[in-house]
């Protein structure tokens, strides 16, 4: 039987790959990945909207999957890959500019992370709709059409509407 990893100390050393580069940090064991990113690393692109994994504003990639960083203890990313909105290529975001994906911007980094992940996995649209895949990113400004249109535009680039 493998021994689980147990810690009970005032500071933990955490090494992981962040936005493609290795990083080692001393963190408070009680810190969430969201806190470490925003307050320790000054990567403020990732936002806090609810603290309970409902709104998705804190979405980052963990080993390539979108997750809520407000629900991840920092120590759990040891040895893993984390990517934040700061790692995205701005030139890929042109459809989002054009189709009105953002208004106030508070939900936007999380939205963009999930949307770009969908774009990287177009096979998902065989079983899921865009709206279902985006349902973990709450937006209060756009009513979602601007977001869904942007994802569709990035995927299919037709400028027309499809089943979303």
């Amino acid at each position, binding site marked *: *039987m493998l021994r*689980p*990893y147990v810690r009970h100390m005032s500071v933990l050393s955490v090494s992981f790959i962040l936005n493609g580069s290795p990083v080692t940090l001393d963190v408070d064991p009680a810190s969430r990945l969201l806190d470490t990113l925003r307050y320790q690393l000054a990567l403020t692109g990732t936002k806090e909207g609810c603290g309970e994994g409902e709104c998705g504003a804190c979405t980052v990639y963990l080993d390539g999957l*979108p997750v809520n960083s407000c629900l991840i203890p920092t120590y*759990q990313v040891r*040895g893993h890959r984390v990517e934040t909105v700061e790692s995205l290529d701005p030139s890929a975001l042109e459809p989002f500019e054009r189709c009105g994906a953002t208004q106030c911007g508070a939900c936007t980094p999380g939205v963009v992370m999930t949307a770009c992940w969908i774009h990287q996995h177009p096979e998902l649209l065989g079983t899921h709709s865009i709206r279902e895949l985006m349902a973990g990113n709450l937006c209060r400004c756009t009513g979602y059409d601007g977001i869904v249109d942007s994802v569709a535009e990035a995927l299919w680039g037709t400028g027309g509407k499809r089943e979303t």
Partner: protein
Amino acid sequence: MLASDGAAIPIAGGTDLLAHWPVHVEAHERTYVDLSRLDPLKSLRWTADELQLGGLTTYWDVIRDPRAGEEFPLLVDAARQVGAIQIQARGTWAGNIVNASPAADGVPVLMAYDAMVVLESRRGREEVPLDRFYSGYKEMKRRPDQLVVGIRIPRRRYAYQVFEKVGARRAQAIAKVGLAVTRSGAGWRVVAASVAPTIRRCPAVERLLETGAAPEGPDDLLPTIAQDVTPIDDIRSSAHYRTRVMARVLYHDLRDFWGKRA
């Protein structure tokens, strides 16, 4: 650690434990046992007779498994209705079991598939059928020194299966009523969530399906349902609503089966 401490809390995906973490300052004092690096617990495995989920298998792992959708479609249905993609990528089936919420999404479908909970500790391995795992609200047959290392699901041919989650919206919703129903050579399984202190089988409803007269409308099911569940009024919904919804969903979904002997 668990054997000596008892108060240590295993943490896997963290989607239940970390909610509102900064506000729950007293939770920061507790000892947590981080399971996330136990790689052998992550994968799911197909054998000739079973689908075996690991202790760290996530909802997303099952959604992406091509065979799961074919043989155990309720697992995929339920997984897709857990929160949203960000939660599905982190939440584990085992975590859902030991969180023991009466509104859990994973537990009803596992129970309807006759899943077996595999527990391990220094004292050895123990297996408990999921439908006998809960003894009361948030009480379960897991000693503090035990870890859920797997979930075993027997492979069967199912003649009928359905999962219904009734929430206040389509995604990111906590179930007001959850129902998982299967029918196989092993008989009917009717499992209800959010209508009792625990998720549970509904033996009176199952008996009615096996042997009983056809109800003429949903209200005819109310006395039978009352034998199995005790819904309450809470911040999300009312007992009246829950009872009626359960009756209506069962009545309509099983229209083809009422009054016919198994």
